[in-house]
């Protein structure tokens, strides 16, 4: 088993929480893992990404090579497109459709979405709306996106849920159940 995943978004959106849950689930499966993060200046509203590599064999590089990613998980549609060079030819894009516009020259949204849709293997979801419908707070939108990625992750749904329980346990039952509801909503949306 080997999955190279690029997590993308804008600083402050919460891509690292997705990585933490996947990482926990991967570890409980006995997989090797490497996860390169971005800290420092770019976290201030700039584009951020994390390279998450899972494998049943030892992993060498902390970075994913261009053309090597199985999956891009993005909390922002233009940010998903930023890493196209890294995606395998038959890789998947799973992205939120909600733009984060904090720059004056953000391209036309319909064009951005059309570029995602032009790609055969794509999932495009309004994760904020889905979080709301699931009765979860807007901050749980990242967990909706995680739920929608599960079929491409190579890790079973139940294992991801178990990871969420372990990660959010100390924040209380309410937070755990909201996050699980969000993951379920994302998972169902792509089934």
């Amino acid at each position, binding site marked *: 088993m080997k999955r190279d995943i690029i997590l993308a978004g804008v600083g402050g959106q919460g891509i690292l929480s997705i990585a933490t849950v996947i990482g926990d689930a991967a570890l409980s499966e006995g997989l090797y893992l490497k996860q390169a993060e971005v800290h420092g200046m770019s976290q201030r509203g700039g584009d951020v990404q994390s390279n998450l590599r899972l494998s049943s064999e030892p992993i060498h590089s902390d970075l994913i090579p261009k053309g090597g990613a199985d999956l891009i998980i993005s909390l922002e549609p233009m940010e998903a497109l930023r890493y196209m060079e890294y995606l395998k030819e038959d890789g998947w894009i799973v992205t939120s459709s909600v733009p984060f516009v904090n720059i004056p020259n*953000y391209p036309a949204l319909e064009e951005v979405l059309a570029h995602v849709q032009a790609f055969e293997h794509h999932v495009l979801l309004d994760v904020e709306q889905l979080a709301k419908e699931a009765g979860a707070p807007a901050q749980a939108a990242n967990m909706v996106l995680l739920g929608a990625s599960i079929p491409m992750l190579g890790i079973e749904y139940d294992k991801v849920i178990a990871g969420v329980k372990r990660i959010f346990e100390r924040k209380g039952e309410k937070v755990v159940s909201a996050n699980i509801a969000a993951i379920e909503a994302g998972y169902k949306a792509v089934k």
Partner: protein
Amino acid sequence: MKYLLLGDEAIAQGAIDAGLSGVYAYPGTPSTEITEYIQHQQSKGTHPSIFCKWATNEKTAMEAALGMAYMGKRALVCMKHVGMNVCADAFMNAAITGVNGGLVVLAADDPSMHSSQNEQDSRFYAKFAMIPCLEPSNQQEAYDITRYAFELSEQLKTPILLRVTTRMAHSRAIVETTNEPMPQKTMRLPEDVKRFILLPAFARNNYAHLVEMQKSFGEISGQAGWNTYTKGSCPTKGILTTGIAYNYLMENYQPQMGYSILKVVQYPLPVAMIQQMVADGVQEILVMEEGQPVVEEMIRGMVPSTVAIKGRLTGDLPRVGELTPDSVRLALGLEPLPQHDADALVVSRPPALCQGCGHRDVYAALNEVAREYASPRIFGDIGCYTLGALSPFHALHATVEMGASITMAKGAADAGQHPAIAIIGDSTFTHSGMTGLLDCVNSNANVVVLISDNLTTGMTGGQDSAGTGRIEQICYGLGVAQEHVRVVVPLPKNMEEIKNILREEIEYDGTSVVIARRECIQTLKRHLKAKK
């Protein structure tokens, strides 16, 4: 036990398990998480007490760590690469005194300048100071080698430089830790006090001893087991990797290549291993190293001139920026993996000051006042507020290094510039701005020093700032006239007042300080959340 740790955290845990008594550091990407991890472990109250309060700058950190090592205990100093410049005086001379307890100096380099103003390579400092350097290739090795570094420091009675780069510092992997952490050392005075008194007569002896030790440092590099040489089936081609470059090689390596591989983790370079490579018939050595071409230059003197040395200097690898699996792939002569084209629709999204940040209000006022002058000069400094150089403010005319805003404004004023304005954060002010302000006071330089005080070290994530609550007192103490130390609250509703005060102080012919104080919006959120 097995943990998922950042490289920085692996180093911190390694230091704790080596019986660390104190960590001394000023925050700086990508080194900050080392001290934060130790602080977090300490807050649980489960470990013996380790001193872990932030230092005012890297120089005070280095000196305090040397003092702790003087007393026979183990100390760690952590900083980003440019911090090495700040503490260079203490660092270079710690190599001359040597140490009593173990002293490990951690420098986190930032090739590609993800969060820095240059990509200087700290291995030069180890060579400059003539001390051993360790450069782990993965997170497990980072943990293990930190423990070894303290042993080696005490064995050789010298500080050890531990060098990592961004992708090691900020990447997580599984790390297995020891079940038998070492207890802290007890206090033990140095046997030879003269070693620590660097009068020329004593220092000459120390320096001669350090030079004499070089041979054994080199031998240890060859024998300690961290550096490994594997002879390949291809008789003529060899590869030398340092630190994490080994991972990029292995990512792309195919067994049929058959290259002889020398993996370097410990310096000085293992000369015997390099010569063995040549003796095995290698005619070409490709050097893969993260950072500047340090090894590529050094080994030219170690091998016959007939052996071709390739790397960053020859263009086989990019001259600047960090290595990637892709650049190493090309250097190995492999085709790129099939990939999609970059999407031309994507535009850059540079970092920006947070919405609601006090620095925004400071720049809004400053820009309006500055526009009233024909040729204002605003000298910036290092912190979140450096982003004031970008859209929408475009406010800065220079930003160089920690503290330079004040002294460059002074130099500009000395040259006849008016208005000469410095803008500096509270943490940067106490790090390296105070002495410059004293220079201004001593010549009553015609400058306005605008201290944008957000009560924290913001850019690195909100660490304690050394002068919080005492900025005015520090300015008074340095001799700034009390009536020219003005305090404002940077909020839109106070805009007229702030502008008027700036105008008055610009028109005052002498040194004045305007403190714009409002808590960082990020730490404010955290504090409000904690109160709930």
